[in-house]
């Protein structure tokens, strides 16, 4: 595990920015290497975004308890998306212990519900479904609407692992994963700080098809698997 600041320093060292009498940067606001810090931060955030998009980071997976006493309830602030394609909310008691029941998403979502029950905003009772609510805050709506009682639901989601401040943790469990990630980010950093002419020489196939990034990214994915990947493909005949 490493912090965002440590990862930036790792990139600056790897790329020879920090050398000689240079100390590691202590803050993103340090002016000495301001341009390099800015690009290193971009490189890390961009690469993280790619890995998140590939749905490969175990570090994203987490759960939280949702307290429901009205029609809607806000999801965790770091909520990115549910882990499961068919998500469910597991009912718990106030202490977070499972009550062995769950509610599922209303089939077809809020739009279907709106056509099925014109009074879904007002219908009260213990919720049996939830539906996705858009807007500026990620939240769920509940049907029927709880009235006079509070219910608790555990939900499993992928959290937002984007980093922004020095102390944020780079979302990798082991040191070796972090190191490999830094290698990818360093390559991206090299790309960002290169002029177009230099990019043509160092990245002849662009960033998306860069061998270093792709091979290292594959290695990182391997490292993050909980079991070895299959070594063979297709039907096996004995």
């Amino acid at each position: 595990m490493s912090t965002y600041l440590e990862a930036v320093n790792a990139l600056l060292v790897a790329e020879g920015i920090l050398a000689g009498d240079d100390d590691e940067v202590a803050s993103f606001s340090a002016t000495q290497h301001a341009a390099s810090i800015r690009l290193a931060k971009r490189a890390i955030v961009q690469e993280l975004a790619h890995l998140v998009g590939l749905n490969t980071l175990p570090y994203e997976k987490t759960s939280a308890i949702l307290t429901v006493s009205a029609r809607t309830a806000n999801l965790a602030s770091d909520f990115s998306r549910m882990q499961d394609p068919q998500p469910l909310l597991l009912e718990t008691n106030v202490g977070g212990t499972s009550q062995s029941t769950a509610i599922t998403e209303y089939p077809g979502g809020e739009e279907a519900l709106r056509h099925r029950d014109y009074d879904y905003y007002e219908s009260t009772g213990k919720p049996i479904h939830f539906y996705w609510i858009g807007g500026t805050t990620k939240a769920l709506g509940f049907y029927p609407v709880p009235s006079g009682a509070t219910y608790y639901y555990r939900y499993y989601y992928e959290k937002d692992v984007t980093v922004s401040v020095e102390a944020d943790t780079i979302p990798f469990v082991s040191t070796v994963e972090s190191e490999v990630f830094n290698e990818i980010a360093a390559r991206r950093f090299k790309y960002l700080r290169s002029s177009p002419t230099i990019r043509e020489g160092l990245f002849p196939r662009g960033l998306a098809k860069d061998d270093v990034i792709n091979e290292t990214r594959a290695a990182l994915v391997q490292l993050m698997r909980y079991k070895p990947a299959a070594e063979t493909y297709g039907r096996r005949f004995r």
Partner: protein
Amino acid sequence: MSVKREIRSDAGFEIGFGAGLNERDAYNIDIQETQAGYNFLLDPVGTVLNRRPTQDIVAYTPNTGEITGIVQLIKTDNTQTQLVACETVLYDWNGITNFTAVTPAKFVKGAKIRSTYWPLDDYLVLTDIELSVPLYKWDGTACSRHQTALSIGSPATVSTLTKIAAVATLVTTAAHGFSTDDFIEIAGADQENYNKQAEITVINSTTFTFPVESDTVTPATGTPITVDAAVTVKAKYGQIHNGRLWLFNIKVGDNAFPHMCLASDFEDPENFDNSKRSGDVTFSSGNEAFFLYSPDLKPITNISKFHSDLVFGTDGGQLFVLTGTDATNYAFTSFYVGSGANSDEGMVNIGNDLLYFRAGKAIESLTSTDQYGDVAADDISWWIPDSVQAMDNPIAIYDRPKQRVYFFDESLNGVLVLDKTFMSSAKYIEGRLSPWSKYETTMENRFDTKAAALVRDAGEEDYTVYWGDADGAIFNINGTGIEGDAGGGVNGHSGTHPINVMRKTRVIMELNTNDEVMLGRLEYTRGDSINVDLTFSWLDELNEVTCTIPLKETLAYSEGAYWGDTELYWNDTADVHYWSDFQIASDAEQRSNVGFSAVGKSSGCVVKIMIAGVGDYTISRIYI
């Protein structure tokens, strides 16, 4: 663009510090020059950035007033004394902390005392740029009126002239009409010691006293002995030349003769004649005293030796040189018609050259050709038009040991510094790079001075430049302090004053700063821990970005031998140390570098380096 360039960031563009201030153009000056800056030193060979010396306070005058004169007498026995004019007091200063008032009677506040040395009798002749006090002389113990043998020509008869101890008493037959401290002249005594000019103390209407040598015979005899009012002579400039004392820009009594030069008798600096011009038909020996006028009859401003000649300028006029061999044929002839000196003290001899501040605000260098007599002038301030325009009446001082010329000016808020050694380098001769630097200070005095002089340190053999400020502080311009200017000072100089160093490159267009990230490294030799601010002013964006770069201090190392074997563990020649400090290099060897990267993209930029503080450091170069 090669990959190598990308990998090796030191293969780009180098900023050095090998030349001085060049204010002419922001685009086309050399990258070694600086379009603005201060407090850096120049080197004829090196290209490193070092700060100027500190301004150490050598002493304070007791009255902490404005210093208007610093002169030094070094006698033939190698003893030295210093006089400091401060407000209404003239101090005899021992060069350390002791000040003794030796103020003569007619001394007034604001007198800009300057001096010229008369070696035959071991004293200084004191003149006054302000023409406010008469001629004095300083023999190392007393300051007295310098005699000129000029009187008003209305002698009165002396009744008796006697003396007791070293005081003569003169009684006139009629009321003498003098006042105490008046300057009188005695003539006609058979005993020569009485025949002199002196300041008197009036006893009554017919009696006064004056000092005389104690072994003088008394009473005086002579027929008749007369007393006359001596003429008060004031002069802006004095110079010893060809065995005479030459006085320029004169005031005789209340009458000003700014275009006049008085020359003393040959080898008699106390005998002048303001009635006979050089070449007078009565002259026979050629040793006689005489006067001359500047040929253009304009006020004489500045005098100086140039090679073996005496040169002076006239206000807004031209330069003249003294020609001839004796009183029968001395004359002033035109020397350089181009322009005249235009300041009181802006002319200085720098050994092989003469610099002067001329009308139109420029500093000219008067160089002679191999066939002396044919001279040419060169605008030595060509690089610094803005700075010289700010000057009004500079005081030029040549620091012979350091080979630097300082131009103090109260309108400048600093000192312009011309590095003479730089002018002998290929950088100057072939590259025409600027030999100028500028000193500025965070002290309140801003280098404003009315008195600066090259003097010998007390008790030492080193010469340096002292200058005084308005609060009674005397500074050594080549200080060695570690606390900045006036470090540890009091009397209005309390606290330390950091020596801020600044240089600003020309516009750098060679880099592809539209497409590339500004990356660079700064090479330096470790000294004190100090921050360097590199400010990038981007064209087009009109934006400034500063990178603050910390320089590290010298690693500790041992000077001593270890284990008792200097050959094995301590190589003094190489200054490399073994064992005790694990081969940590000495100060000079602790070279390192530190990186930086500046935010910003544009078609070009100007890089300003700013170092605030009092530490020691040496920055070798910056490469981008």
